[in-house]
């Protein structure tokens, strides 16, 4: 049987590679693979996340100043993780489990006071709605009615969670469990239960589950050392001060903390940063900002709304036989000549060097210009597990680059057949907030530098500049409309609307939930803040009869066109003239209407209307 498996795998692999090659051709036509989004989830397994939430009475106590209760905050957090998973990582599995409940609900009901609200599965519309139902005043009531608050046995709860993981048939690559609680001694000093919970926690950790504590504010402060320090996973490195973090008192902090942990870092590539011959430092390449797009539509069978599969096949038009990729070649046509290459040749042309980052040298930061931007930057962090010693070289390099205000210029080859790009590696030192949570991660940002072809020359208009008083007036306006920009402040209204629509359809809602379009200027507020300033500025820069809103100045039409709208008279071309053009290969200089007229004039039949088709037809006719 093992032999058989190997054989099947081999067959599948071999033909799969071809199929993929073939399949991707459509997208790959422009010769550029979709560079940076290339995280291969299918090959690495699923990520999973279990929310283990304390449902004791303490969790339902509201904070001062009508702050939401810890339970309410947690539910809002769970909801936002659910929806963000649906949008940005729709293959991840999530579960929601309560402990310290009165009621029990788990597969064999073998665990008391543990309530599995959501099994480990993909989050969907219904689940989002469920969690919504647990929010706010009403949610607390619902929770009370369905689950109630009772005894706490964290050990049993953790055991129950470990069953969730083991019941999953899929390969899980990353397993995380987050405990949300505001009680630092869940068992109230019951040493036996504490011990049990610690044992279960270490069992879980042994199977690769990472346990985090999302501790919430409680009167008197949350003392991690009393119990939880032995339950949670050790920090990723000895210096991480994870547990000294203050408990979260605000939803925003909690969300930030959950978000930072909930997403598994995935590198798009792990490669060597080559400083010189024989000096290779291992690094991972990460994406920290990449445009989220609406996913592709899928096709469903009308009768049952089940997805259908699509099969693409290549046929020979004449014989009707199926073609393999090897039965085809690739062509491009330039200046009337067809240039043929093998598929392999097309691929190998793109190869320059093996994947990696190659240090070219260093430049002062001021050499990096604002307009050096082509696509989202990458983030570079050492991979000590690949090459020991990498982190130390990296740290030294990062520190000195940062202190000397220089960037490293590197040649970047992501995968085997990807052509090189140059990156400016800009150092970024770590920054932490008051609660010792990381705001800015240590590492280099790789800024993609344009090639000469990528910069366009513009004809810049010669226009008068503003006077000091005009500039000063504008400064007042700028002052009035100041705000603190935050990169996570704007939601994408197109995506949000799309998902609201899907949500509404999935839940049979009458209408989708309203989205607030944060990209729209708040015109009323702006006008109010500006008061008379806008008018004053206008008076300073615009003459009274000038209308800045009007259509851009109509193009001054040439005088002869003023008379009427008559078309240019047709210019008949003599045959000699035309033959001259054909001989010189100058037909391309004529406009499409002229070419069409010429076709008519010389009785040339054309099937298409494309310029090249007209030219080809004329050439064929006149060189007969």
């Amino acid at each position, binding site marked *: 049987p093992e032999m058989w498996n190997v054989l099947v795998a081999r067959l599948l692999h071999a033909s799969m590679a071809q199929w993929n090659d073939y399949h991707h051709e459509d997208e790959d036509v422009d010769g550029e693979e979709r560079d940076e989004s290339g995280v291969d989830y299918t090959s690495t397994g699923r990520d999973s996340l279990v929310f283990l939430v304390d449902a004791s009475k303490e969790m339902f106590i509201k904070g001062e100043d009508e702050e939401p209760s810890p339970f309410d905050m947690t539910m809002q957090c769970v909801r936002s993780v659910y929806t963000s998973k649906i949008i940005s990582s729709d293959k991840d599995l999530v579960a929601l489990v309560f402990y310290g409940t009165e009621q029990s609900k788990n597969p064999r009901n073998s665990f008391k006071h543990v309530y599995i609200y959501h099994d480990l599965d993909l989050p969907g519309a219904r689940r989002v709605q469920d969690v919504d139902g647990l929010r706010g005043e009403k949610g607390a009531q619902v929770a009370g009615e369905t689950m109630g608050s009772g005894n706490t046995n964290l050990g049993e709860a953790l055991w129950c969670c470990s069953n969730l993981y083991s019941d999953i048939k899929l390969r899980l690559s990353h397993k995380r469990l987050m405990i949300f609680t505001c009680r630092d001694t869940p068992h109230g000093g019951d040493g036996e239960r504490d011990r049990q919970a610690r044992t279960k926690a270490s069992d879980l950790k042994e199977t690769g589950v990472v346990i985090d504590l999302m501790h919430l504010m409680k009167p008197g402060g949350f003392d991690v050392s009393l119990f939880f320090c032995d339950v949670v996973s050790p920090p990723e490195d000895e210096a991480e001060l994870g547990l000294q973090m203050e408990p979260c008192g605000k939803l925003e902090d909690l969300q930030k903390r959950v978000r930072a942990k909930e997403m598994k870092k995935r590198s798009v590539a792990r490669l060597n940063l080559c400083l010189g011959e024989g000096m290779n430092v291992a690094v991972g390449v990460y994406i920290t900002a990449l445009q989220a797009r609406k996913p592709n539509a899928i*096709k469903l069978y009308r009768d049952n709304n089940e997805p259908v599969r699509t099969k*693409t096949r290549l046929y020979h038009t004449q014989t009707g036989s199926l073609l393999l990729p090897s039965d085809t070649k690739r062509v491009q046509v330039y200046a009337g000549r067809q240039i043929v290459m093998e598929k392999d040749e097309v691929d190998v042309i793109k190869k320059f060097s093996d994947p990696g980052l190659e240090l070219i040298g260093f430049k002062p930061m001021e050499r990096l210009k604002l307009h050096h931007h082509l696509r989202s930057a990458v983030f570079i962090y050492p991979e000590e597990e690949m090459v020991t010693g990498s982190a130390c070289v990296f740290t030294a390099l990062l520190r000195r680059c940062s202190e000397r205000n220089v960037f490293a210029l590197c040649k970047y080859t992501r995968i085997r057949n990807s052509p090189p790009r140059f990156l400016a590696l*800009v150092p970024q030192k770590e920054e932490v907030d008051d609660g010792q949570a990381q705001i800015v991660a240590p590492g280099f940002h790789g800024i993609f530098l344009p090639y000469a072809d990528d910069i366009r020359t513009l004809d810049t208009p010669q226009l008068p500049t503003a006077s000091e008083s005009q500039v000063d007036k504008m400064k007042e306006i700028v002052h009035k409309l100041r705000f603190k920009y935050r990169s996570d402040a704007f939601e994408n209204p197109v995506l949000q609307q799309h998902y609201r629509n899907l949500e509404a359809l999935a839940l049979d809602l009458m209408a989708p939930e309203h989205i607030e379009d944060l990209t729209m200027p708040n015109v009323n507020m702006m006008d109010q803040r500006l008061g008379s300033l806008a008018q004053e500025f206008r008076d300073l820069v615009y003459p009274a009869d000038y209308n800045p809103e009007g259509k851009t100045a109509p193009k001054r039409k040439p005088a002869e066109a003023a008379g009427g709208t008559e078309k240019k008279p047709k210019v008949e071309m003599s045959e000699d003239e035309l033959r001259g053009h054909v001989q010189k290969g100058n037909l391309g200089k004529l406009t499409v209407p002229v070419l069409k007229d010429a076709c008519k004039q010389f009785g040339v039949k054309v099937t298409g209307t494309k310029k090249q088709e007209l030219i080809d037809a004329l050439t064929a006719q006149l060189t007969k």
Partner: protein
Amino acid sequence: DNSTLVLCLDVGFSMSNSATGQEPPFQQAKKVIQKFVQRQVFAENKDELGLVLFGSDNTKNNLAKDDQYQNISVHRHLMIPNFELLEEIQNDVQPGSQQADWLDALVVCMDLLQNETLGKKYERLNIVMLTDLNTPSSPDQLDIIIGNLKRAGITLQFFLPFPVDGGGSNPPHGGKALSREQQQGLEMTKKVMMSLDEEDVTGVCNPDLSVFKRVEKRPMAWPCTLTIGSSLSIKIVGYKAVCEERPRKSWSVVDAQTHQKDDIKRDVVYCLNDDEETEVQKDDTIQGYRYGSDIVPFSKVDQDQMKYKTDGKSFAVLGFTKQSMINRHQFVGTQVLKVFAPKDDEHAGVALSGLIRALDDLKMVAVVRYVYARNGNPQVGAAFPCIKEKYECLVYVQLPFMEDLRQYSFPSLENNKKYTPSEDQLSAVDSLIDSMMLVEEDGEKKDLFKTVPGSYHIPNPQYQRLFQCLHHRAVNPSVPLPPMDPWLTTALQRPLAVATRCQAPLETLKKKFPLKEVVKKKELKTSKELFGNSLGTGISTSLAVWERVGLHSSLGTGSSASLAVWERVGLHSSLGTGRSTF
């Protein structure tokens, strides 16, 4: 918007002379021309181009009379460049055994331009001279020629096989001293260029010899109105300033035997997820989306009705913020826009200038809602002030939406004792940085490595290589593809000076920082060991397997049984591509 250009190539005998080990100027110049024509052909540029050779054994030009304008040959009249021209250059353009006055050749070129552009409108008329200036030239008519060039609006570019920065009398570094003719010729070229207000005298020994000054297409204007609140508007025009340039053509699939596109048909069939793989008609399918675990039918019509809509073009200021609040590593999107006032609108110019200068003084940016057109998606971006000697503008870059961000945290490096470098190690890094600075500051700043325009800049190597191969294959259909152009390989490497300088610091660095590759057992099994060497033989596999593969790869979240197989296969194929897990 037509421009036309005459290449004027010196094929005289001195062009074949070179110092040992160096390529003769003729070969260098021929390459420049080939690269340029190649570029024009592949850009399917409709600009006409002529080729004039001087120092040729034959004489063929309108002005030749008696002993005047001898050994100057109009090799090609103004025509759109094509592969025939490339073939001619490759096979027929050879060094001659004569000499001709480069000023005479220039006059022939001017005459050619004048005659053959008569009655047509041209945006630009160019002449490009490639010569070593090694022929005696009579300067007596220089002023008349300059006058004629100016009057005809002809621009001139010189490519010379020696550096010109050293001045006429100083011997160029590394090369032979210039001959008297060359010194005199250089003085004359400089005079011509000065009076034409041109800066372009380029030494062919530059590494960027093949990157001709490109005659570009005019960028698309995007007229719009910048708004601040409801009562302040400024008319603007945006242009793409930076954007990844891609070739306009793509590969199409043809039958391997006939090379005909029409012999191949692509066929898409839809089938149910059952054991029989029942085929269904396209008309029996509807559109849907995944929403997490849900599959939601959502017709195109409904979608269009319910989707987010904008009310057209927009460049609306949402507010102003400090430049320091905008992280450049969070720029998203694939372009940089430059925003000006309309060319003929000085009031808009003043108003926009007011905004640009105010932002520049305050070190702030405008955060803007940008919508390209009615059916475009809205963006939020930053408009930075940009004040240059010759112009002012806003530079617009797209910023991320919340959904685009991945806020990863990474373990601390500085606070980790294991990774803390010693003073000794830090100073080793310092010497490496010192030795590898690409910007030298001896009196004048000099950049040794530039990817963007400047004295040394790198064109996208992907396209240089692609066009090199296409050119080769077009002209020699049955010959294997050539190796990469050496200049291109060199251009992508550490500059020689830096590579030499950093040797010693690098050695020290190696000693100070021990590095050890971690070999994990899992990695030892390469795809070769797993599958043997027979990977390629899969090509002959039957249709049955072909289709089954289709099944597995199209499975997104289908039944879990086959999913398991999919994942295993996925694992193996990731080993195969060398992207193995560590």
